[in-house]
């Protein structure tokens, strides 16, 4: 795999992301709305008793992980887009292994996701969140791995879908449960057993847990376990993405 090829392929997506000003602003502002509305909306009611920290601080890592989920998943729409507008043919006849194309897409997805995460983490102290800067830096590799695995899932879906509508339908169907059953919005302690079981099966729960543990010091699982699960999901979904993408015909 030639690093220069990956760099240029990924740069193409990032450049286009930055060039589209309106959607860029919307993407960067959306997570902040979550913190404002949900964070301040529930702060009084939740208190600090059950979660160990102020609710806004508790919520920020969850929202950061959510931003990674949405942004990485939808970044794969560019494959559907490329197919629709014909550029995919140019990529598929190029003397580049399919795995390289997939890897570059995963990289660009996680770079754009990281941009959003940085905004969330940098702005959140203004909302009174107490984030450990060193912990936040350590959380970045976890979020990158999580973003890559989500984008791999998106690529798998995009490789099998012929239309925007088809892609949008499937992705929305996948993304809602992953988000709601992840502990991004609530602590994992004392959940009803059925919900707890679902949450344990969801790789995002571990990404949220690690990020929260590293950024604000509260977590449910051991952090090495969190990291292990996220990496395992990455390996599995990455393999699946390469396989689906390679099967695709122009």
């Amino acid at each position: 795999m030639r690093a220069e090829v990956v760099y240029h392929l990924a740069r193409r997506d990032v450049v286009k992301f930055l060039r589209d000003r309106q959607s860029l602003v919307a993407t960067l502002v959306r997570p902040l709305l979550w913190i404002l509305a949900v964070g301040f909306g529930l702060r009084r009611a939740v208190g600090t008793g059950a979660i160990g920290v102020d609710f806004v601080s508790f919520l920020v890592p969850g929202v950061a992980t959510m931003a990674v989920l949405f942004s990485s998943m939808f970044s794969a729409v560019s494959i559907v887009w490329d197919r629709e507008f014909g550029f995919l043919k140019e990529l598929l006849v190029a003397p580049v292994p399919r795995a390289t194309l997939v890897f570059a897409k995963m990289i660009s997805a996680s770079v754009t996701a990281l941009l959003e995460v940085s905004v969330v983490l940098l702005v959140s102290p203004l909302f009174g969140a107490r984030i450990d800067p060193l912990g936040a830096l350590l959380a970045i590799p976890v979020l990158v791995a999580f973003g890559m695995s989500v984008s791999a899932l998106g690529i798998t879906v995009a490789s099998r879908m012929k239309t925007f509508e088809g892609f949008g339908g499937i992705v929305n169907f996948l993304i809602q449960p992953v988000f709601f059953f992840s502990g991004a919005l609530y602590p994992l302690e004392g959940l009803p057993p059925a919900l707890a079981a679902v949450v344990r099966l969801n790789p995002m729960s571990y990404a949220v847990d690690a990020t929260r543990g590293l950024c604000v010091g509260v977590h449910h699982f051991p952090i090495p376990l969190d990291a292990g699960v996220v990496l395992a999901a990455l390996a599995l979904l990455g393999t699946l993405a390469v396989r689906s993408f390679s099967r695709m015909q122009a």
Partner: protein
Amino acid sequence: MNPSPAIEVRDLSKRFGDVEAVRGVSFSVKEGEIFGFLGPNGAGKTTTIKMLCTLLAPTSGALRLAGFDVTKSPEDVRRSIGVIFQDPSLDDRLTAEENLELHAVVYGVPRAERRARLDEALAFVELSERKKDLVRTFSGGMKRRLEIARGLVHRPRVLFLDEPTTGLDPQTRKATWEVLRGLRDRNGMTLFLTTHYMDEAENCDRIAVIDHGRIVAEDSPEALKRAVGKDVVFVRTNEPAALCAVLAERYGLTPDRTEEGLCFRVEDGEAFVVRLVSDVRVAVTGIAVRRPTLDDVFLALTGRQIRNGNGEAGRDTMRAMARRR
């Protein structure tokens, strides 16, 4: 030692459900040759190119390109080829230069040469001034020129061109052909192209006429024309049925009905026309005599004209629309 042919195709077929797009096609193209696929809409030209450039798996048949088996070593094949697609294939949210640069990187053009190659390619299609502009701001013809330039950036051994000059003005078409011939002469590049333009097909060393997924003739343009041999006569009349009957009865001819009137082939066109006009009582409104062209070759082989003027215009508009989305 005999070098292996640039392209070798044996009994190639492709079926899409009920549609047999390509039905048992065989041909081979020598290194440095300009080979053309000439055929009407839906003949199977694009489908054949897609199979040759690894984008589509054949239903059956053997394909070799630059010595590599296309189905077994697609990566080696991709390294040897360049493709100028019939349908749009640019990223119109990137600039012209960015499109070419990504292509150069992906095809492994050495960094030291990249700048020069891009500038050369942009200059050749006269887009140097617009290189920093987003492709979506380009006209249809400018986009097409950029695609041609991109196909040349990495100097492939075998270049596929699927209707390369559709949508280009006559000057640009001519200039494009000069460059393509130059590439063949200087670098020994092999060119495989498809076209409906007869004058364009005449640039080829060899032509395969393809219709309904089958090759109906294959030879040099001159030989094909010679095979048709006779002069082509068009006669316009308001009573085609009556004239047809006369031509059949008295001269044993079976004219084809075309846009330009009744069409038939005779040994000495001028002499025949003089005789016909004095012989026949049917009112004739126009007469034309031509030496055979590839159009006539196609007509003689298939009984149909390759495409009328209307189809041409309609198609270019469709292409422009597809590009504008």
